[in-house]
């Protein structure tokens, strides 16, 4: 319950914080942190222009995508506080919810019969097909490390391991993997750049060129929410579940804020990949996760 609202608050502040950080680092003043809320509200009130070639799929696409991410919120725990729904394998459900949103957005991009959007669409599905194993490998590692198979129990018991060194290793590398995962899942640098001006080099952003008004507002909200979803997972890893609530809430907000700033810093200093290098880059995340998995499994099962 608490988790849902905390994540929601963070979600609205994510895009503003990232933009502000990037602006300050490039010597500009930048908009206010909560500017995003006004932008989204303005879009939600606006009228829409639809492509002549679009059909009903295009009309429902943004709403489905939004509903999926909002439902995914219900699965996110908050540092030991239970989420609305917690069951074994809830992370599988979460990832497939995001998959549903992506599916519908991709077919909507094909609906407007534009060459640009088709290009974005096939890149998006390919990148995510390559990306998904990384998340499951990471969750597999956490499962084997803690002996539990749902978000809530994993995050609650991750600090209860007697090898404090292995806890530190697992958490550090998990954060690294989740951070890289978050950037790709949210179509940020280094695989994609939402601020680029050339449609040919965009991936996710080119898919939503024809959405306008209410739908575009929902899409902006969705991408902010996705940040919050994965940001919360990272924060859950960092904050031990047995702390008192009046420590956890400020800690959670501070970590989310720091994460947003670090995304901004990362984006300011890192150039984007060459398009052809992207698949390799994405597979490398799975490779890191696989190495972590094998190390943990060897430690856990005492084979050596």
């Amino acid at each position, binding site marked *: 319950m608490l988790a849902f609202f905390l994540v929601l608050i963070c979600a609205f502040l994510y895009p503003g914080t990232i933009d502000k950080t990037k602006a300050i680092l490039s010597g500009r003043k930048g908009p206010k942190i909560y500017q995003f809320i006004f932008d989204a509200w303005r879009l939600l*009130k*606006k*009228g*829409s222009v639809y492509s*002549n070639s679009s*059909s*009903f*799929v*295009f009309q429902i696409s943004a*709403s*489905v995508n939004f509903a999926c991410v909002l*439902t995914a919120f*219900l699965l996110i725990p908050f540092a030991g506080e239970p989420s609305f*729904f917690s069951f*074994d*394998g809830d992370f*599988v*459900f979460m990832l*497939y*919810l995001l*998959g*549903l949103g992506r599916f519908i957005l991709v*077919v909507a*991009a*094909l*609906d*407007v*019969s*534009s*060459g*640009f959007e*088709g290009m974005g*669409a*096939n*890149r998006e*599905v*390919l990148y*995510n*097909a*390559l990306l*998904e*194993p990384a998340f*499951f*490998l990471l*969750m*597999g590692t956490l499962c*084997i490390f803690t*002996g*539990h*198979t749902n978000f809530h129990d994993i995050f609650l018991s991750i600090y209860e391991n007697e090898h404090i060194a292995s806890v530190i290793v697992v958490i550090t590398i998990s954060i690294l993997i989740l951070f890289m995962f978050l950037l790709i899942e949210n179509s940020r640098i280094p695989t994609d750049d939402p601020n680029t001006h050339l*449609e040919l080099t965009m991936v996710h952003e080119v898919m939503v060129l*024809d959405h306008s*008004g*209410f739908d575009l507002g*929902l899409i902006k909200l969705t991408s902010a929410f996705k940040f919050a979803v994965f940001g919360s997972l990272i924060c859950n890893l960092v904050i031990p579940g047995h702390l008192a609530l009046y420590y956890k809430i400020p800690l959670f907000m501070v970590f989310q804020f720091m994460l947003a700033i670090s995304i901004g810093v990362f984006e300011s200093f890192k150039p984007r990949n060459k398009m052809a290098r992207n*698949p390799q880059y994405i597979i490398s995340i799975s490779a890191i996760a696989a190495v972590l998995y094998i190390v943990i*499994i*060897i430690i*856990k099962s005492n*084979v050596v």
Partner: protein
Amino acid sequence: MQIDLIIFQSAIVLSLLVFLFPIKLKYYAIMLPILAIMTVTSFWALGVIFSHQEKVTSLSFNISEQVFSFWSLIPQLFIDQITALFILMINVVSLGAFVYSHGYLKRYLGVKSPLGMSMHYFSLFLLYLCMLLLTMLKDGFMFLFIWELMSLSSFVLVAFHGEKAKIMKIAINYLVQMHIGFLFLLAGFLIANKQTGIWGFDALPYYFSSNNNFPLFLVFFIGFSIKAGLIPFHTWLPHAHPAAPAYVSGMMSGVMIKMGIYGILRVLTHVQYQLYEIGLTMAIISMITILFSISMAVFQRDIKKLLAYSSIENIGIICLGISLSILGKAFHINALAVLGLTGAIFHVLNHSLYKSMLFMLSGNIEKITETRNINELGGLAKKMPYTAAFFLIGSLALCALPPLNGFVSEFLIYKGIFKAIASGNFFVSIVSILAIIVMAISGGICVYALTKAFGLSFLGTSRKTYPQPLHEPPRTMLFPAFLNTFLMLGLGLAPVVLLPEISHALSAFKYMPLDKEVFETQMTVFEKFGLLSFILVTILFIVLGIRYWQQKKVKVSYGPTWGCGYSAGDAKHQYTSTSYAAPLKHIVSPLLKETNTFQLYKEEEIFPGERKFSTETKDRLEEYSILRPIHFLLQKIPKIGLAQTGRIQHYLIYPLAFLILIALLTAFNFI
């Protein structure tokens, strides 16, 4: 009197009358016996499911041992929980297919000969009947006979357009491969018979308890997997499915290839030892199957071929679930054993629903546009909204996305695997994580393939002018989609309804102790799971409602697609099937054989004429496993024929040489 048996028998006899009816009434003449059998068997199956008791029935009910009757050929029919689920699945899919065939075959009524139509209808009936009987039979001889009959009837169905040489070739290829599978099954039953003296599945428990389990299992596994389409025995499938009429492919892909799975399950129910080898072999084969077939699916232009490859992938997922469950048993991880098998059986049912529906919807496309090439389609959704909406739902289910049924079964398998990982066994963890990687990648690539199939053929602008204006097909051709969508949504939102029945079905497995604890935790999980799916749908409708309200208030207009300021773009600017698949091609290029045909310009050609470019991607595995060996044989076999000169003098020399050889060998005491 046993009224159900009388109906069952008279329906079988009445079906022969289809040959006598006039061509327009043949459909109704075959529909009546089919509906009768459907009702009877559904009652049997539901009775077994609700009473939790096995049913044993015999078709020869006036048992007088001396009098030979036709019905005593068919021995007793056994219906247990697994059989009951399969019967219901066959009935649902076949009902859809039969209703669908009415609309689909209308245009062939004047073209085909009455005998051809009768043969087609009768084969359809026979295929349906054979599948039903196969699930209920335990006797080996009869099982093989019906198995053969099923192959033959489906051969006749595939060869419906047999006047085209290409399709006849595909059908014969199918028939030959089925017979190779048949030989393996025959060998399997013979081996078991030699040891135990019993014919049929009843011999297996005795055989397995006293012999090595793995070799015999492998023989059966190869035999059944040729029918199921596991790699490397899949080569008939991507050809036979597109060649057959849509509802036949729906039935074949929906239920017939599941008979292979059913056979594997039946053999597995008796397996007792060597679970480790069996599980590992199956796991490796199914993982290769999944990855290979789903990447091949992306490169298909023919929408039915794409679906056929995706069927192979789904068979792979089912087998993966089964194999993981065996491994779970071998290493005493009950959660994996129970969840893997439950997931696999659930996936069999799910896949039959959405795949048969997708095949029939692609038949709708074919009927209206007269093409199945994705490169020529596009923009169908505006004129065929129902077909498009159902195809979208089917694709979502196929990609295993919530809140549809496909996700439930994959979730079960995922959950079993993660439970196994959490248990911390080294070997199981390694296999499990490989399985998870395979399933995750295949899930992603499945989205790739299905966004291509749906997005490029239904959405956008049409790439070609169609022979007739686009419109919805007749209602009978949408009926299976209605029926299956209803069931799919039901199973997706309330999986708790079916799960207890599947768990009861697991009790048939000798090696599987029914773990009550695993099952109960699973039920609470699925109550939450179903509720979450409901919430997803509710949120979606709320958002759509707000959107509807907002759109009524503001100004909504239509305009050209954003083209970077260039507004003269036409349908050719859209992505095609080939270009959509291009990024993946660089990654999976070793699996593909791509042939481009293009005639280069000559130097003396000052005013070049029209040129055509065509590109084709082929399954490289098919080339290595089927085409090259056949080519090799065709080259070598004539050389053996050298001895066969046709001259009587030569033929007289052979016995003489033989006699001399014998004499020599005897003289030197060799024999």
